[in-house]
């Protein structure tokens, strides 16, 4: 029973949503302690909140790499827009490429609020100082590659991205909700391409199997080598929730049955689910290949970066026009 006149003078501080690390009167160590307690306890961080340098740097590095991958990831697919087999496929592929560039824009927006200007991020990407995902360093040799990329590369990515919708960095988490919604359409488009070819002529079937054989290695490398959860700072700060091995297992659990139901085979002899443990065994991915490729020594790394450099130079006039002062131009 509550007597309206019997006001409890003060509620305990925990019942208010005050974020003590934003209190500039506290010293750094105290703020750090409050911040760590907040974040490791599942709290969210906004761009305007105080944050330790380590957290800011980790989130920035993570989001910048993601943005770079979206921007570079359209290049393998873009090569097939003019060669799409039907008008509908061409429209879908064009829309996908447009979406991925849009994702890069959204993610660079999140990253630049953390203190690194967009121009600097693009420059570092073009100079090879920052990285993009391994799968975008490979050539696309046939239309079947477009199906495999849109279905399985996007599926492997979405497994990771869905876990990021709970990221402690709230602007990133919100952006990931929007991106995941759009990516789900890409997966449907890709799966439709693969299923169509898998049920098509013998030549189409052979093409899709050949593409799958070629992409399987990079797909298995995509999430990265196993890592120690306890040492992973991205997990400590709840920037991401799952380790690379957890993501790979999740990907295998969902997609291996869907690949096999099409009568396609995987070039991975030991690949099997242990029913007792629920863990997939697989051929150890080639981690040397991963390291070689992501340091821009992949088969298409330099060609793709050259294309971006040429494109960056060719569109300088657009950025100048946007930033140019109209009054100054008249005078």
């Amino acid at each position: 029973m509550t007597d309206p006149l019997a006001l409890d003078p003060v509620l305990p501080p925990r019942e208010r949503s005050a974020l003590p690390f934003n209190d500039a009167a506290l010293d750094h160590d105290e703020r750090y302690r409050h911040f760590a307690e907040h974040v490791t306890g599942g709290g969210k961080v906004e761009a305007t909140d105080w944050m330790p340098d380590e957290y800011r740097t980790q989130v920035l590095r993570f989001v910048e790499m993601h943005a770079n991958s979206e921007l570079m990831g359209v290049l393998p697919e873009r090569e097939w827009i003019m060669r799409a087999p039907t008008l509908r496929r061409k429209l879908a592929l064009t829309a996908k490429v447009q979406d991925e560039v849009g994702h890069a824009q959204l993610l660079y927006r999140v990253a630049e609020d953390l203190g690194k200007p967009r121009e600097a991020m693009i420059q570092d990407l073009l100079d090879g100082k920052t990285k993009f995902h391994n799968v975008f360093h490979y050539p696309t040799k046939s239309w079947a590659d477009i199906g495999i990329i849109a279905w399985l590369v996007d599926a492997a990515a979405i497994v990771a991205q869905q876990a990021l919708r709970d990221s402690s960095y709230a602007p990133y988490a919100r952006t990931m909700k929007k991106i995941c919604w759009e990516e789900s359409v890409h997966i449907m488009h890709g799966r439709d391409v693969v299923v169509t070819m898998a049920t098509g002529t013998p030549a189409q079937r052979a093409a899709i199997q050949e593409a799958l054989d070629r992409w399987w290695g990079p797909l298995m490398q995509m999430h990265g080598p196993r890592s120690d959860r306890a040492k992973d700072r991205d997990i400590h700060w709840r920037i991401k929730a799952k380790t690379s091995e957890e993501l790979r297992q999740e990907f295998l659990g969902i997609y291996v049955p869907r690949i096999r139901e099409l009568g396609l085979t995987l070039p991975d002899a030991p690949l099997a689910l242990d029913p007792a443990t629920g863990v997939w065994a697989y051929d150890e991915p080639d981690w040397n290949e991963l390291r070689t490729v992501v340091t821009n020594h992949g088969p298409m790394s330099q060609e793709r970066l050259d294309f971006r450099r040429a494109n960056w130079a060719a569109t300088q006039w657009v950025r100048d026009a946007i930033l140019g002062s109209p009054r100054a131009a008249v005078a």
Partner: protein
Amino acid sequence: MTESTGGAPATPGVLEPWEVFRREKDGDPMRHGGSVMAPDATLALHYAREMFSRRQESVHLWVVRRGDIHDLADLDLLQPPLDRSFKKPGGYVMRDKLAAAREQSGQAKPKANKGTR
């Protein structure tokens, strides 16, 4: 496309963050969608349309220069540290008093109906 008439004019040649609000369908409230960088309202709206209605997922967009937003996050004002339960339905727990009233009047407990109070 309309341009904002309020606020200070944008500084030419300076990119600024513009907050984007979007209405998903008629009758919905405007909700914050995200932000874009632009030198003026016209370009901010172009970017907003590209980022937040490329899939026809909005029927109405607003862009507001971040610097034009007035913000209040003072918890002493928003979450005053006093018991305000008398302002909430949950602050009125009558179960025991009602049981006593029924006992006093000799009436049975009414069957649950759609009314809540």
